[in-house]
């Protein structure tokens, strides 16, 4: 494709929202390109079983569902490129995206970059990822069979991680900075009844102890100030997500948590730029709500393009 080629739509991110936008756009006859840095699916690709996406009564694994969505969009002519976007100029005409595979141009851009697990921000956290530090119990839990694992966090995903791990690990220690779980009630009783779960309330992790691999964590009680060392083989960090909006900071309006401000029309503050899925402000972040956004974005993009843009 020569450098000056202008797509009708470029979708940034190949998760469920992104590939649904690509499907609708391609079916509407728009020339569409999806830029994905690694593989289709986004966060969903690491989800072993999805039981709440309608139409798959036996459940389906996220990676397979993602590949199906990709192939479905491609069947109608959408293209995919494994490219990492390095910068975007969303106010230019055409809009310009600089990537690891060269520059791409489009009349409309659908931002479907999703969200990633939030880090604790501790020294050596990145280096220890995969060497004892993990962000997904469903992905990495099996490695801690018969071992001791710490879970950090108090929300639904921390509670789900602790439940999953207590069936595999010898012992699970849940570390939470408050004195009670924020997770919904359904988790409370099973967690309290599990014999191999201990709780460290009002505690934060201050240090990851390690040589080659993680050997323990250092905790501080936020009320008493007391410091303790907890030996463990793994620590699962489950303290929420952060939207992938670094590249659009300064161009798109973001809320205080970094999500792109957009309502259910998916329109952002910039004409011809739409935000779908986990990256936009919304009450429920699920595969079904992401795919709905993808369809809405294309509807709005067609309107925008019909206006002579």
């Amino acid at each position, binding site marked *: 494709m020569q450098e000056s080629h202008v797509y009708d739509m470029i979708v940034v991110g190949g998760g469920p929202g992104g590939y649904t936008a690509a499907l609708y756009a391609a079916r509407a006859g728009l020339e569409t390109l999806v830029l994905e840095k690694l593989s289709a699916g986004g966060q969903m690709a*690491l989800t072993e079983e999805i039981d709440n996406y309608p139409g798959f009564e036996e459940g389906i694994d996220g990676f397979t569902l993602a590949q199906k969505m990709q192939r479905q969009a491609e069947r109608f002519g959408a293209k995919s490129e494994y490219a990492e976007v390095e910068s975007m100029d969303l106010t230019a005409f055409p809009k310009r995206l600089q990537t*690891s595979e060269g520059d791409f141009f489009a009349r409309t851009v659908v931002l479907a970059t999703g969200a990633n697990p939030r880090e604790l921000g501790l020294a050596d956290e990145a280096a220890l990822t995969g060497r004892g530090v993990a962000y997904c119990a*469903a992905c990495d839990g099996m490695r801690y069979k018969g071992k001791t694992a710490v879970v950090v966090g108090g929300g639904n995903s921390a509670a789900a991680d602790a439940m999953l791990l207590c069936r595999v690990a010898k012992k699970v220690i849940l570390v939470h900075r408050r004195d009670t779980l924020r997770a919904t009630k359904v988790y409370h009783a099973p967690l309290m009844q599990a014999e191999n779960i201990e709780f460290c309330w009002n505690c934060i992790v201050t240090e990851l102890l390690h040589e080659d691999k993680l050997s323990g964590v250092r905790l501080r009680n936020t009320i008493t100030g007391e410091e303790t060392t907890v030996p463990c083989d793994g620590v699962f960090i489950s303290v929420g997500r952060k939207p992938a909006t670094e590249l659009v900071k300064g161009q798109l309006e973001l809320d205080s948590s970094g999500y792109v401000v957009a309502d259910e029309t998916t329109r952002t503050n910039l004409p011809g730029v739409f935000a779908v899925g986990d990256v936009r402000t919304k009450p429920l972040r699920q595969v079904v709500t992401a795919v709905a956004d993808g369809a809405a974005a294309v509807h709005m993009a067609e309107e925008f393009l019909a206006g002579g843009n």
Partner: protein
Amino acid sequence: MAVIDINKEQFEQMIKGDKPVLVDFWAPWCGYCRRIGPAYEKIAETYGDRIVTAKVNIDEEAQLAEAEKVEVIPTLILYRNGAAVDSVVNPESKAAIDQFVRAALDK
């Protein structure tokens, strides 16, 4: 060229060959490994004339994984003249794999 599945014997022969060998140590239960699969196929296409692109299932080749000190997967290692040149753990993008391969080939 496509990615080829290899065992310990094939590995030992291959890394002594003329072409550098890129090996993806993986396992079927590893979600992160699955995720790099499609990009790894692209890498095999792109660099097919310069390197051999292979995969080792560490569940089937536990001895080999241990000998190569693979503790975390996916791990990609580039071998030349029978020795490991460099490695990368869980690359986050196809661009990151590209960069790793180019840098390792220059070493």
